[in-house]
């Protein structure tokens, strides 16, 4: 249950969100209402409400086990095996909850894209970058080899991977972690998706590299009018990148609002405890020094 819907920026439209009107952008975004997920008799998501409008970065924060990743996976049509999903995920004019596997497969990778924490795990170590960048493009957009290659070069340039021509012939182990994450993002945006789920996209990276990836995500969101769902436990990253922040705890939303309000004047005690636990807020505890 969404207990705290008291934030001024929240459109408290419930259930019957048949049209994508209101504060949610005209098209392309996601509207999640009352999303629940049960697995083995346990309720892991309990009535999650979430708006992911186009052209905005929507942050989903919370500690491990809060259900933030599960929410992202449910949006992508990848709930854990045996899970029972209820509620509603509206995308464009379609309902994603209860959508068949085939229909979801057609959407995922094309209109709903994703980027995960570890690019070395999400890229195949023995396939060239070119192969991994063109395979899904040819499948989803029905392009020829040549057209797909052109598209691959275009997106590699867009994510600023140096010398794209050569990069296509190379393999994942020949790149640094930051470059690999850029390539993973290139793969994600190759089919011109409307929604990008980014689950801890910078957590495995060094701070200097992290800043570059954050800037890239921001830019892609603005330029391509992408609806970005940013899942992270790192409130500093959240504060830099997200426009609105939704905070989750044990499968439910506890707070939701504009970035500045949630971080500066959190209403819910749980959000407050998260913010106060940050190093900038923690008083240095001296033992004997």
């Amino acid at each position, binding site marked *: 249950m969404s207990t705290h819907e008291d934030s001024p920026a929240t459109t408290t439209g419930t259930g019957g969100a048949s049209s994508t009107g209101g504060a949610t952008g005209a098209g392309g975004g996601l509207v999640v209402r009352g999303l629940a997920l049960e697995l083995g008799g346990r309720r892991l998501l309990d009535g999650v409400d979430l708006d992911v409008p186009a052209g905005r970065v929507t942050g989903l924060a919370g*500690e*491990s086990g809060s259900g933030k990743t599960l929410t992202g996976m449910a949006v992508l049509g990848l709930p854990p095996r045996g899970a029972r999903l209820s509620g509603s995920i509206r995308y464009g004019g379609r309902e994603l909850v209860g959508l068949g596997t085939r229909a979801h497969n057609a959407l995922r990778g094309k209109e709903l894209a994703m980027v995960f924490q570890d690019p070395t795990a999400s890229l195949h170590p023995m396939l060239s970058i070119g192969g991994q960048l063109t395979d899904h493009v040819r499948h989803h957009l029905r392009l020829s080899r040549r057209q797909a290659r052109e598209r691959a070069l275009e997106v590699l340039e867009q994510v600023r991977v140096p010398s794209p021509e050569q990069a296509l012939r190379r393999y994942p182990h020949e790149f640094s*972690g930051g470059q690999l994450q850029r390539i993973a993002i290139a793969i994600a945006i190759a089919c011109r998706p409307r929604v990008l789920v980014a689950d801890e996209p910078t957590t495995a990276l*060094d*701070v*200097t*590299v*992290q*800043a*570059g990836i*954050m*800037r890239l995500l*921001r830019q892609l969101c603005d330029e391509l009018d992408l609806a970005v769902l940013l899942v992270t*436990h*790192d*409130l*500093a*990253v*959240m*504060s*830099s*990148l*997200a*426009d609105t922040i939704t905070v989750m705890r044990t499968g439910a939303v506890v707070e939701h609002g504009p*970035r*500045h*309000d*949630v*971080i*500066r004047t959190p209403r819910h005690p749980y959000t407050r*405890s*998260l*913010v106060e*636990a*940050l*190093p*900038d807020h*923690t008083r*240095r*505890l*001296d*033992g*004997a*020094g």
Partner: protein
Amino acid sequence: MPGELLLEDVVVEHGRGARRVRALDGVSVHVAAGEVVGLVGPSGCGKSTLAKVATGLVPLTSGRAVFDGVPVERNGLRRRPRPLVRLQMVFQNPYASLNPRRRVGSQLEDGRAVHPGTAPGVAELLEQVGLPADAARRFPHEFSGGQRQRVAIARAMATGPDLLIGDEPIASLDASLQAQVATLLRRVALASGASLLFISHDLSVVRLVADRVVVMDSGRVVEEGPTEQLWRQPRSPFTQRLLAAVPVADGLGRIPQV
């Protein structure tokens, strides 16, 4: 004073021939007794190799490593020289460093057996790290991630060490726990009179716990100094870039300029 670690001009190379890689390239680091030193740098800069040098897990190509006046030799099958056991480590993943099939209490007793008499009792150790006394009867899997790292800290403290080395001890924890566990590590180490070498890529947490910070890049020490001074006036361009890239949770939506 016990707890002093001295690394002088340490060079470590891996591999041979054309594939030879210099992991540490003439590094000198000093941790004084009762001091908390933070070691920061990007991945691959040699932070963890340095910890391995201090514990005798990698052979030195050249240079010198001395702990409490005793040269650190490479660990072999022989029993370690007694004084070197007074150096203990806390690793990133507590689940990998604790025995999953034994109760926490008996694992702590093992540690205490190293220096019987000097180390506090199991109940006291658990209390130090903020765990209830009944934690001794439980197995590692019965704890949450943060609690398990507390158990790992208690295990390191059980031997009554003079120097504690934390190699990314908070990297696998939730953001909300990182500062808490890091300050706990500092408090516990200093309360027992031990010094602490805190290795992390998270600069804001290092700022919180370290008296002095050493910045490394590609196997070399780039800069070092008292924590606050280094934060206010970083001299090397590398440190300046590193500090400028740290995002701040200020709610202003600023992406760090690099």
